[in-house]
């Protein structure tokens, strides 16, 4: 009986090729869109997370003042850091890979007849470790250049492009405010940060030189600390807090006048945002699955109405109700699962090629494939079966008279 139903179902599918194709298409669209959406959502999340971790590995940032949201006010009473603080960290905190003090100022960089407004940062060589950033050309600072505060600089790709275009920048002198400095290196391309800032728009000079010629004081407004990979940043952060409270003589119970930012916290915040993004995409996908389901439902309902007479003929020549139903059930299962399988392949291919062209990672999510497949197959079967059941329960003569 099952074999008969199978034969009859295949004949009916073949006979109604157009309708069969439309049904399959409904399932294909539903399954493929869910798979593509969720895969791409996961890929985007992974992409953003990767990007944030590119900001620096295991990085902590020590800043003066208090961690307040909202606009920053120029509070002159805030005590900045000194070079002694940097040395103290190196001396007293365990598990530190690099400590990079930094000060920055917006300036207008001039070369021959071109000028470009950029940001000059006073740094030392630990900066390259903390930022995990290398040079494309030239060299990093020499110890004596750092010590004496020599007028040399390393420029970012954007600065190079704006001032030099295709020309060689190495060894050239550019003017920063009232003095000129010689270019000894060009940084590699870093690209835009996750927050949209152009990280290549930068000029690095020795910290000493920055203090003497640009800021005119020995203050250090920011220290970046990079911990070793196997050391928890949590632990380093606590040690740093203790050290700085002591150095800045903050009594027990009083608030800190500095704060430490862990890059991991930022990653977590952004991570939860992108999770929302995935959820949103998932919701959109669920709607397309639903719409696909309604499409299947429509075709099935219309086809059963159209086929009521056929059901009548089958019943009149002696088919049992359950034989007719079994045939319709087999038809629905065959069409829906065929659509489901095609949908899986199509969805994965779309996700794969989209991931390639958007340059985001391709992430395979087995659960979503299964959920999409079973849901749309279920819709196909349910809506193929129940209207048929209604028709098969009619009296054969009523079914035959159906127009």
């Amino acid at each position: 009986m099952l074999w008969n139903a199978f034969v009859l179902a295949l004949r009916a599918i073949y006979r109604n090729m157009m309708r069969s194709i439309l049904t399959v298409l409904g399932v294909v669209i539903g399954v493929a869109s869910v798979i593509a959406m969720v895969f791409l959502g996961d890929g985007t999340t992974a992409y953003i997370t990767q990007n944030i971790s590119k900001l620096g590995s295991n990085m902590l940032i020590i800043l003066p003042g208090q961690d307040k949201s909202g606009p920053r006010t120029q509070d002159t009473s805030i005590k900045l850091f000194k070079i002694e603080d940097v040395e103290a960290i190196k001396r007293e905190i365990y598990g530190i890979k690099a400590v990079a003090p930094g000060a920055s100022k917006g300036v207008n960089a001039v070369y021959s007849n071109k000028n470009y407004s950029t940001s000059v940062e006073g740094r030392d060589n630990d900066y390259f470790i903390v930022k995990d950033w290398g040079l494309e050309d030239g060299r990093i600072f020499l110890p004596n250049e750092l010590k004496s505060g020599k007028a040399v600089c390393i420029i970012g790709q954007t600065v190079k492009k704006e001032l030099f275009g295709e020309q060689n920048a190495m060894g050239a002198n550019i003017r920063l405010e009232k003095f000129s400095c010689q270019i000894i290196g060009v940084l590699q391309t870093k690209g835009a940060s996750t927050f949209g800032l152009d990280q290549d728009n930068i000029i690095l000079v020795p910290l000493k030189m920055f203090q003497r010629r640009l800021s005119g004081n020995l203050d250090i407004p920011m220290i970046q600390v990079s911990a070793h990979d196997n050391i928890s940043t949590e632990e380093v952060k606590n040690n740093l807090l203790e050290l700085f409270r002591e150095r800045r003589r903050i009594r027990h119970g009083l608030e800190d006048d500095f704060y430490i930012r862990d890059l991991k916290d930022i990653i977590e915040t952004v991570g939860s945002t992108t999770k929302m993004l995935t959820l949103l995409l998932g919701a959109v996908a669920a709607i397309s699955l639903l719409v696909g389901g309604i499409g299947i439902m429509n075709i099935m309902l219309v086809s059963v109405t159209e086929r009521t007479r056929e059901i009548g003929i089958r019943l009149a020549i002696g088919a049992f109700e359950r034989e007719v139903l079994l045939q319709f059930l087999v038809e629905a299962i065959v069409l829906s699962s065929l659509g489901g399988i095609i949908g899986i392949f199509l969805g994965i291919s779309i996700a794969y090629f989209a991931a390639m062209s958007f340059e985001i990672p391709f992430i395979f999510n087995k659960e979503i494939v299964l959920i999409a497949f079973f849901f749309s197959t279920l819709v196909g079967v349910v809506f193929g079966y129940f209207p048929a059941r209604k028709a098969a329960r009619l009296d054969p003569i009523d079914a035959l008279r159906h127009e």
Partner: protein
Amino acid sequence: MKTKSALIELRDVSKVYGHMSTATYALKNVNIKIQRGEFIAIMGPSGSGKSTCMNIIGCLDSPSDGSFLFEGLNVTGLNRNQRAVLRRNYLGFVFQGFNLLGRTSALENVELPLIYKGVKALERKEMATKALEMVGLADVLSHTPGELSGGQQQRVAIARAIVTQPLILLADEPTGNLDSKRSREIMELLKKFNKEKNITIIMVTHEEEMALYADKIFRFKDGMIVEGEK
């Protein structure tokens, strides 16, 4: 002579539609006896109950009152599946509108009742081919209804009805959609199966010319038989 029971016997059969005050009788106390091998024509104006009577004999419908005997067995109270068993084993149907499956070859249409009877594929094909040969359609086996003329379609329907070698062939206005030449051909075909295969034929028609092929004519009016014999 021993009293052999009739093939079909309707005793005081009534069919009512609706309830109480709105009740209308499609059939009112109808008594019919049909013997094996007879060719019966049922005539009457539309709404006279001839189709209802036919549907009851064809086990497509059940009577509201009275009893229906098939070879002496009371089959009045059978359920849907039991009636389906009677239909697939003993009855064949030919309808006015042919009622073939569209986009399906003549051969597959004729095979259909055999599939439900559980006949194996090879044997099924052989029987269906033979039935189509008998109605003179040996050369259009693979044609679909859309590629056949009305007369040919009705022949396919007849082949489908007789392929299971039924006891009774029920024909509801089989010539209703055909011109007179095709009609006569169909009637000759039915007559042939009646004579050669001893298949009992019960045919509803409103054309006197077609009714003349029958051995007996029952005339219906307002749900009752008004005239029994020829």
